[in-house]
Structures are given as C-alpha cells and as structure tokens.
C-alpha cells in the first residue's frame, strides 16, 4: 500500500484539484482509494461525483452523571483539561460540546457516578466512482472536534494499492490526524507571500511528523522564484508546477477534472504518482 496525503498550509491553493486528479490518473493503473479527510468542508465529491452509500455515525464518549451516586467531590472537573465538566453548588454540570471524549472523568470518578454516552459528532460515508473507491467524513454542524472524524475515515483505508488522502488546510490537529504515518505528503502552494509563509508552516509540520514531502506549485507563472528558492534551501523537491491558466480554472469551476478534459494532464499526474513511488521506494 502507498498512502499519499495532500496538504497545504494555506487554504484554497489546490489540494483537492491535485488529490482528485492524482487519484483519477492512478485509478487506471491499480486499486486506488480516495479519502476526503477535510471533514469540515469535504468537497472532493463535487469533482469525483461518486455514487454514495449509507452514512455511518461517528461518535465520541461523553460523561453522564448518576446524581444519586455523586458526592460532588470535584475530581471530574479537576481532571478535565477542557472544562467540559464542572462541579458547582454540589452539582455536576456537563458541557458535551467541549468534551474531547478522553474518558478521564469516568475513569477517575471515585464513586463510579459517571457513565459514558455516545455523542454524534459526524459521519463517514463510502462511495464508488468507476474503479475508484471513495470515502468521505463530514463533521456535524455545531461540532468542533474534527480529529475523531478524520480518524474514522482513515480507519477505512483499504490496505492495498494507492490511498490518496485529501487533508484540511492549515497545520492543526485535523491535519495531523490526516497525514500522520502516511508514506508521502504533497504540499500544495501558490507563488504568493501568503502561500510561501504557510508552506513553511506545513513543511515544518511534516518534518516534525517525519513524513517525506514534496511541493506542488499551483497557479504558477509569476513569483515562482519565491517558492523555488525556498524549496532549494529546505531540500524539498518541487515535483510539479500547474500554471495559472484561465482554461484550467474554467475546467475546475465546472466541477470537472484536468485528467479527463485534457489528456496531457493524465500523463502529468501519472508521472507524479510514479515519482512519489520512486521516492518512497515502491
């Protein structure tokens, strides 16, 4: 199995464009699975148009209080790092929307007065598009805890062929959950000062996680040297440039993919996949 994550510091640089095109280009070559781990805003389905299956709930355990057994000792509130449980005037108050589901309060309650209830924070949904196997996660509206939903999507990894993971933008916990332990991470950026700044954050994140990475420069043309010089300094391979082009933007805006509209791009993304394979020794 070869897991390739697609991430970026800055949002809107072209992660989904890269991930969907790479997945479709490789889908003719062997088993490919696409995981949309950008669970706060999954949008790969807009380009892949998969036939979607049933939704599966993603839940976390949150505490519920058995008032009769509680002595209001305050141990639960003391151990909660997120203030999701409070003891006030002899009563336990829970705030499930702040709970991270660690189970610490239930585990450490000396009276056994807490039990765990399931709180739904999102869904995982499978699908199929031709030979491409599709999975996406979606965080519930109002829920703030994305990593368990990302982990639920990644639990569906098929364990063979190529797995393409579309991560959220940024460098916070949901991104870490999406790219942890993958074989390779593509960092998509654009030739702007913002793009470069956030590329640096993302590059430092993958280095911290020990994930080999390469850069894709999207909307290339003006200011490329900013990113090129950075990559050279950091020893990061610049694997592909996608030019700033009205034609490419128009294809994207219609919910279409480059590899199906312009045959030369199929070859480009196939080569990208092969290059990544070489770099990780596959």
């Amino acid at each position, binding site marked *: 199995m070869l897991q390739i994550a697609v991430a970026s510091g800055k949002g809107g640089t072209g992660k989904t464009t890269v991930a969907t095109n790479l997945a479709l280009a490789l889908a003719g070559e062997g088993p490919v699975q696409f995981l949309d781990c950008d669970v706060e805003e999954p949008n790969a389905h807009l380009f892949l148009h998969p036939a979607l299956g049933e939704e599966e709930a993603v839940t976390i355990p949150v505490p519920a209080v058995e008032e009769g057994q509680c002595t209001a000792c305050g141990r639960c509130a003391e151990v909660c790092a997120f203030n999701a449980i409070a003891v006030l005037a002899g009563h336990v108050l829970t*705030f499930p929307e*702040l709970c991270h589901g660690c189970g610490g309060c239930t585990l450490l309650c000396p009276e056994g007065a807490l039990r765990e209830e399931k709180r739904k924070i999102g869904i995982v949904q499978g699908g199929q598009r031709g030979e491409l196997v599709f999975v996406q996660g979606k965080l519930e509206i109002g829920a703030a805890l994305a990593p368990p939903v990302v982990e639920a999507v990644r639990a569906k990894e098929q364990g063979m062929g190529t797995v393409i993971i579309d991560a959220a933008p940024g460098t916070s916990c949901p991104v870490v959950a999406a790219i942890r332990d993958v074989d390779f991470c593509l960092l998509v950026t654009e030739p702007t000062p913002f793009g470069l700044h956030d590329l640096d954050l993302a590059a430092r994140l993958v280095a911290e996680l020990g994930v080999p990475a390469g850069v894709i420069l999207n909307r290339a043309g003006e200011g490329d040297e900013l990113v090129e010089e950075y990559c050279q300094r950091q020893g990061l391979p610049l694997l592909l440039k996608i030019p700033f082009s009205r034609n490419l933007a128009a294809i994207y805006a219609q919910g279409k993919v480059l590899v199906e509209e312009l045959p030369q791009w199929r070859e480009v993304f196939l080569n990208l996949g092969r290059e990544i394979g070489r770099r990780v020794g596959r």
Partner: protein
Amino acid sequence: MKVAVTAQGPGLEAEVDSRFGRCTYFVIKEMVTGEVETVANEPGTSGAGIEAAQLLARAGVEAVITGHLGPKAGRALAAAGIAAYQHTGGTVAGAFAALEAGELAPIGNPV
C-alpha cells in the same frame, strides 16, 4: 456578601474588563466590611467561562459584575447561584458604586 468585578488590573482603581471568562483579574469586595482582594484569572484554552464560574464559587462570591456573558458561563453561574450584572467601562470602584446605587441590570441567564 462578596461581589466580584472583572478587571484589567488589580485593585479598585483598575479598569473594568468587559470579558468574563477571559478577564485578567477578578477584584472581589466584601460589601459589608469593605474588604477588597484581587484574584488573577488564568484560564485554559477551552471553557474559560466555566472555569471562571468555578473560581468565583470557590471564592464564595455571590454576584459578579461584567460586560458580557456567554451561554456556557451563564449556565455555570446559574448553577452556582451567582448573580450577574452588566456593566462596562470605568473603574472597578465605579462598578461597585453603580451596583450599590441600584443602577445595574441583571444579565439574563441564557439556557
């Protein structure tokens, strides 16, 4: 009866802090004896209002004067039986005086 004011600094002459959970200090006054103490507020990353309500409850505070109260902080204060009054700007001493003059409106506790 102890009353707290959310404050940007210690003591009666400090400016009122309009934030509740993330205020810098609580200046607490025993209204009968006039005794004043300042407690630093050092909230964590999550649930600052809930944490602050617990801090005030432990300090034996029965009412708090602040600018704004979020729904979770409101629930926690209500559970603790701590009344909340709305007041922004000016000094802590001014806020206590306004309460004593009956000029402050209670903040409704959102459910």
